[in-house]
């Protein structure tokens, strides 16, 4: 069920063959819930990989396995070629997790001072504070910070040890635009310095802005993997739904149509842009009715991708061919 859009050989990262983090045929269950199913996933040195998926897709589980906070039911998680629980590996790793409560009576600079002390060669407190834009709030108690400022402190704790590998679980949730840009800039700086970053997000835009490679995860499976533009091509565009007397083959001939599916009495048309296609539809079919146009958002894309993987196991060969398989 894994589809790779981009062959590993084609990646042009200098040390692309060095895999710094991997999940190998990992299954992870919580009771009866299958959080991850047969996930194979690799992060290469110097790469910025985004794990993109809706809530509950298994993103956090993947990160916790790679941090050694959990063990898989089968398969294995590796970091720097070894066990993620190995303290030596932890010293080269930084992590930002979603936390319910952080000790509120400690000041920003105290939290950073403590976490920096765990590492061998930490950044200076001033550097860390500047990186996350909290210089003026260094003496503020954590409990007195806004939600966005708290997120930035957690980000600071992840980077303060100057780790080689950074795990960021939903790093920009709750951040305003400015703070999000700031975190993005810092993530880019980490990459520029040769670090490796795995971030999870449910914003396609975020994955697009940052990542070299995106893995789309849905219901515990990686359903697509590729560069942001490859993923975007699959998720961009509009969905047009209507009842038309035109045959499917005719509809496919309309310029700009990427896919046509029958959906009960109606047809579902995917198009790069809606206007020209709709103009053409209305011109050719005077009885056309039930017209609906929606943008193919991420949620849609997940549905489309899962739909296709379920049908022919290969999302790359989606579009027209999927219809012929029926």
């Amino acid at each position, binding site marked *: 069920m894994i589809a790779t859009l981009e062959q590993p050989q084609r990646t042009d990262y200098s040390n692309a063959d060095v895999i710094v983090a991997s999940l190998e045929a990992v299954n992870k*269950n*919580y009771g009866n819930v299958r959080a991850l199913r047969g996930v194979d996933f690799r992060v290469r040195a110097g790469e910025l990989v985004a794990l993109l998926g809706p809530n509950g897709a298994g993103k956090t589980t993947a990160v*916790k396995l790679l*941090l*050694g*906070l*959990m*063990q898989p*039911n089968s398969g294995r998680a590796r970091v720097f070629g070894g066990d993620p*629980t*190995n*303290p*030596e590996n*932890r*010293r080269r*790793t930084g*992590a930002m*997790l*979603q*936390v*319910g*409560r*952080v*000790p509120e*009576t*400690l000041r920003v600079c*105290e939290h950073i*001072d*403590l*976490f920096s*002390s*765990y*590492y*061998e060669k930490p950044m200076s407190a001033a550097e860390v504070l500047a990186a996350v834009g909290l210089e003026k709030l260094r003496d503020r*108690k954590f409990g007195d910070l806004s939600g966005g400022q708290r997120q930035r402190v*957690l980000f600071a*704790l992840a980077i303060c*040890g100057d780790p080689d590998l950074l*795990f960021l679980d939903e790093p920009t949730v709750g951040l305003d635009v400015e703070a999000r840009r700031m975190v993005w800039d810092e993530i880019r700086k980490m990459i520029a310095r040769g670090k490796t970053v795995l971030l999870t997000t449910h914003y396609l835009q975020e994955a697009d802005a940052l990542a070299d490679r995106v893995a789309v995860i849905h219901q515990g499976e990686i359903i697509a993997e590729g560069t942001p533009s490859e993923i975007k091509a699959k998720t961009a565009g509009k969905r047009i739904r209507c009842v038309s007397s035109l045959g499917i083959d005719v509809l496919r001939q309309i310029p700009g149509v990427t896919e046509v599916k029958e959906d009960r009495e109606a047809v579902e048309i995917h198009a790069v842009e809606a206007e020209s296609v709709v103009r053409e539809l209305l011109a050719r079919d005077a009885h056309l009715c039930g017209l609906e146009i929606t943008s193919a958002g991420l949620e849609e894309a997940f549905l489309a991708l899962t739909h296709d993987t379920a049908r022919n196991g290969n999302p790359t060969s989606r579009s027209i061919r999927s219809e012929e398989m029926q």
Partner: protein
Amino acid sequence: MSTATLTLTHPQIQRSPRHTATIYLKEAKYEFLKNLRLRMYTASVLSFPLMFYVLFGLVLNSKQAIGGTSVPMYLIATYGTFGVMGASLFGTAAGLASDRGLGWLQVKRASPMPPFAYFAAKVVTSMIFSAVIVVALFVLGFTLGGVRMPVADFAKLLGTLVAGSLPFSAMGLAVGYFAGPNSAPPTINLIYLPMSFCSGLWVPFMFLPSVVRQIALVLPPYHLSQLALGIVGAGRHESNATHWEVLLAFTMICLGVARIGFQRDQEKMYG
């Protein structure tokens, strides 16, 4: 200590002793600051024993004596035990339950922090607060209640009560591993308040009903308070060795329970 042996099962990290010491010191320092600034902690843990002492030891009964020991002197031992117990139970259990339940412990565990430093910081912080309470009681007694004792005796009293923080820190770890973030404080109160009463920390032991006195013999605060009372000349002349043994056994049981909780947590995560 079982928590120590547990951490040894992980591969050890190469760190200079100096670096390790720095981490332990910082962990303890910030744990102490965290609790010091937590009004709920300082208010309940510090002010209750001191307020009780002022009221019952200095305002109401200061001229009386219990078996030859003045009330202000006697109550330093019993409210001292009460204070140590509260500082240690709340200091470990409440923080641990909250850190465990709300994700902070995971952030710490994902970092290269030596796991034992986390527990050591809580135990050391409890001991420091315990010492503060005992010293504060003594200062009140000395200045307002005419309490006088040889320096050596006070050192012994302080040392005994601070060492007596350990069984209750162990108990706090056990509670912290089984209670949720919100249920930990009420759970502690449910253990701490009845135990204090039955051990003769509020009402001197000889005035307790005989049934309660029988119960007291199995309660750790009774044994700690008897050790403390022995130093101020108001003990019941039981063997000190027995008191220490009971406290040690209690500590081991609590650490055993905490270890079960620790492993249960690991399995939940490692499931």
